[in-house]
């Protein structure tokens, strides 16, 4: 078991009313799983993923990550998890505008103890794998949405995380590219990487071993 959410509630107060973003979420993820989260827009998928990724907090319930209560996790410890364990792919790409494609992909490696030649090799491998060698010196603003998404994925994968949290990783890719990414995820999953992805596409969801449906912050089937 990697992580477990027990009766997680998250709400905001709006005009005196409590609006639930996450409503009594119970959810366990085991090592090697490939989980797809689906649901209509605004149903709380990104919110859930952020909570799982410990980027966002929650109001009630219990969340254990690798046998530790997230509630008590120190910021330092969290930074170490991000560095060594988790790779994020964001719905909105979130690349650093002032860095080139190459440098964006390299960034996570800078926080680990890799030599510069190791880093070079690892980044080159990613560029190669995503077929963006020719774009390596461009800045994010010079790329299309799809290309930016590929860079975002490459950045998440470059440090070989054990858990990938991907928020609509293929949302801006054409179907062939999307297919390729899914194949790649599948392959990584076969190698033992745990993946949680948010997707709108049934086809992509089918790559996963399990699908969770969200509606208004509530898990509607399991």
């Amino acid at each position, binding site marked *: 078991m990697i992580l477990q959410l027990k009766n997680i509630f998250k709400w905001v107060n709006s005009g005196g009313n409590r609006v639930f973003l996450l409503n009594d979420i119970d959810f366990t993820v085991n090592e090697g799983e490939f989980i797809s989260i689906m649901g209509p827009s605004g149903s709380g998928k990104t919110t859930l993923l*952020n909570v799982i*990724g410990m*980027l*966002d907090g929650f109001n009630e319930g219990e969340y254990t990550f690798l046998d530790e209560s997230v509630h008590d996790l120190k*910021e*330092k410890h969290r*930074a*170490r998890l*991000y*560095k*060594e364990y988790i790779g*994020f792919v*964001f719905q*909105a790409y*979130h*690349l*650093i*505008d*002032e*860095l080139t494609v190459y*440098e964006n992909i*390299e*960034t*996570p490696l*800078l*926080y*680990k103890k890799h030599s510069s030649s190791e880093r070079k090799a690892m980044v080159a491998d990613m560029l190669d794998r995503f077929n963006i060698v020719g774009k390596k010196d461009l800045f994010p603003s010079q790329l299309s949405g799809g290309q930016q998404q590929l860079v975002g994925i490459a*950045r998440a994968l470059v*440090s070989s995380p054990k858990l990938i949290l991907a928020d609509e990783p293929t949302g801006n890719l054409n179907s062939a590219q999307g297919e390729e990414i899914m194949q790649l995820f599948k392959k990584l999953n076969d190698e033992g990487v745990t993946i949680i992805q948010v997707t709108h596409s049934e086809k992509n969801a089918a790559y996963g071993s399990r699908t969770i449906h969200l509606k208004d912050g509530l898990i509607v089937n399991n």
Partner: protein
Amino acid sequence: MIKNYFKIALRNLFKNKGYTLINVGGLSLGMAIVLLIGLWVHDELTFNKNHDNYDNISQVMMWRTRNGKKAIRYAMPYPLGDELREKYGEDFKHVVMSSFHGDNILSFKDKNLSLRSSFMESGALSMFSLDMIYGNWDGLNNPNSIVLSETVSKAFFGTENPLGKTMKVNNELNVLITGVYRDIADNATLKGLDFIVPWELYSMLYPWVKAAKDNNLWGNNSYQLYVQIADGSTMASVNGRIKDVIYNNVSEYGRKSQPELVLHPMKNWHLRSNWKNGVNAGGFIQYVWLFGTIGLFVLLLACINFMNLSTAQSEKRAKEVGIRKTVGSSKYQLINQFLSESFLVVLVAFTVAIIMVFIVIPWFNQLADKQIVFPFKSVTFWVVSIAFVLFTSILAGSYPALYLSSFRPVKVLKGTFKTGKSTTSFRKALVVVQFTVSVILVIGTIVVEKQVDYSKNRPIGYNMNSLIMIEKTTNNFDNKYNVIRNELINSGAVVEMAESSSPLTDVWSTNSGFEWKGKSPDFITNIATVCTSHDYGKTVGWNLIEGRDFSRTFATDSTAFILNETAVKYMGLKDPVGKTIRWNNEEHQVIGVVKDILAVSPFEPVLQTVYMINYPNTNWIELKLNPERSITSSLSAVETILSKHVPNVPFDYQFVDNTFAEKFEAVERIRKLSTIFAIFAIFISCLGLFGLASFIAEQRTKEIGIRKVVGASVFNLWKLLSKDFVKLAVLAIIVATPLAYYGVTKWLNNYTYQTEVSWWIFLIAGIGAIGITLLTVSFQAIKAAVTNPIKSLRTE
């Protein structure tokens, strides 16, 4: 990693060129000012340190108490040197009697130069550790010797070794050159001392010195005394032992003023030369503190700009912080990153600052009357510089680093991030600090300016137009007064000539022992005495308010007194003219009263003074040049006539108005420096304000657009955007006013004659601060206000 940090830092700097310019420019300017001030302070603090025995050298001074008031004197009696040597020999390594430094004529063959010089006992060379080029520290052991400065040696002998040559002092005494020393450092009290001759010659040249020597006169104080205390002794213990030496040797009468010796250590000569009520009361050191503080404040202003602009840019950097955190950066690493960024900026700024300082240093030297050389080769300088760069990086970078690194990723990545109220208030507080400092500096500058003007406008009591003074450096002038005077007046170059014991711009002697009817027996008198020729009043154009001037038609005028107004008040005389004053067992009749002549300090009260006729006791010639003739032709006519009567005496004259103006040099320099620093401080603050205003305008683009669409005028928007800043300026004025008031009142207390600290000074500073704020902010506000609203709304 560092490479990555610097890469991103550089790209950010280039992307926001405007802010970078403001940041680096402001910081460079601030650092350049700090560097200049630092070099200046260093120069001041190392004053006299060229002397190896700096820590052990002291000048012997004397407290005198008269009518309950303590006053310090530099002048010592002739026998004091021998007394200390004989009775307290173990306390001293050197005891060196010395004349006051003055001009004497030095001649070789037919070349005569009037040079700054001193008669000193032979220990002087070794005590002051003069750097001998030729000869050694025994150079003054033989009474008929002389040691020259390198400059003087070159002036007479070029590059030749002059040892063994014979020169003439004051056209009277032959002396043998026994040494040449390297010119004394510019930041030293002995600076510009051209030659030193043995103490013994002093009494050979001047009968009054001989009299003091032969008669062991303890009551005549006319010489300086330097000592070097013995190794292992302390100033305090020596001081304690010698305290009463004068008291024990003077007459009953002399004891009345309770003379008490005090050691004035060399380290205080330059920086702490003021004395008040029995204690050393500081002095120039206050300006070292003042400018040091200004330097720190200027740096603070520049750092505040940096902090402000960095945090203002934080919204742009927030996303980067969020991403870095999600890929595993710790907070500590982010702090590091932002600190390296500030280090980079500071390093660039420092480089620019060094270049700026290098360029302006000649000009600064002129302004500050210094000979500072840029210390490229000094290791200490570079070590201090590195520390300075690090200190500035941390000062400027720590707040932005802590602030930026604390962002929560989910907030910034969701795009809901907005700078909070607390950072805005922090930024506002910084702006208030900047304004406060600027307003204080402005008020201070105005007050210094006003004080200078005030003291310059004091009545001087005589007419200094076309008035020149010549010091009678040799006795070649003796008994030639009437001949020279007639010839000068007949030539038409000079309207009137006189002689006097003190120059017009100083008082050389004060005396005691005056008695008059109505004087309380306990009152110990101390009155300045000026001996003059009959024509003094006419020559200098003094203003008689009662009685008459000296006149040759009254033979009795040889013992008559003319008093100045202050003397009349001092003595408490009613109807002074005709009264009799007893002095030196003689009766002196007061024949006139003149308006005070401002001779000594334009910042202090005029001394009570008596003028009397005494031809042999004069040292100075005053000449009123013919105003109808050109000055150059008059001067050359005077020179021709003088060279006929006193040959081999260089024509060395000074214009009284120039010499008088020198009294303001120090305070003028302070005025100029503080004005310049204030201007730069304000400029740096404005730079920051400008940057911040543009940022805020940018932030509110959308709001401004909407307001415009719903009908706000440019004026409405200008008001909206400027209002906040004006509020800050007003707050700063409120904070600055009492602080500035306290500071300037304290400074003015240095002077007896103080200008008023008027309310309008604060008004001007306040209006100025608000005006400059509006000017700076308006540019941005109007720019934002006139932008086409469609354009700004589309950015969403």
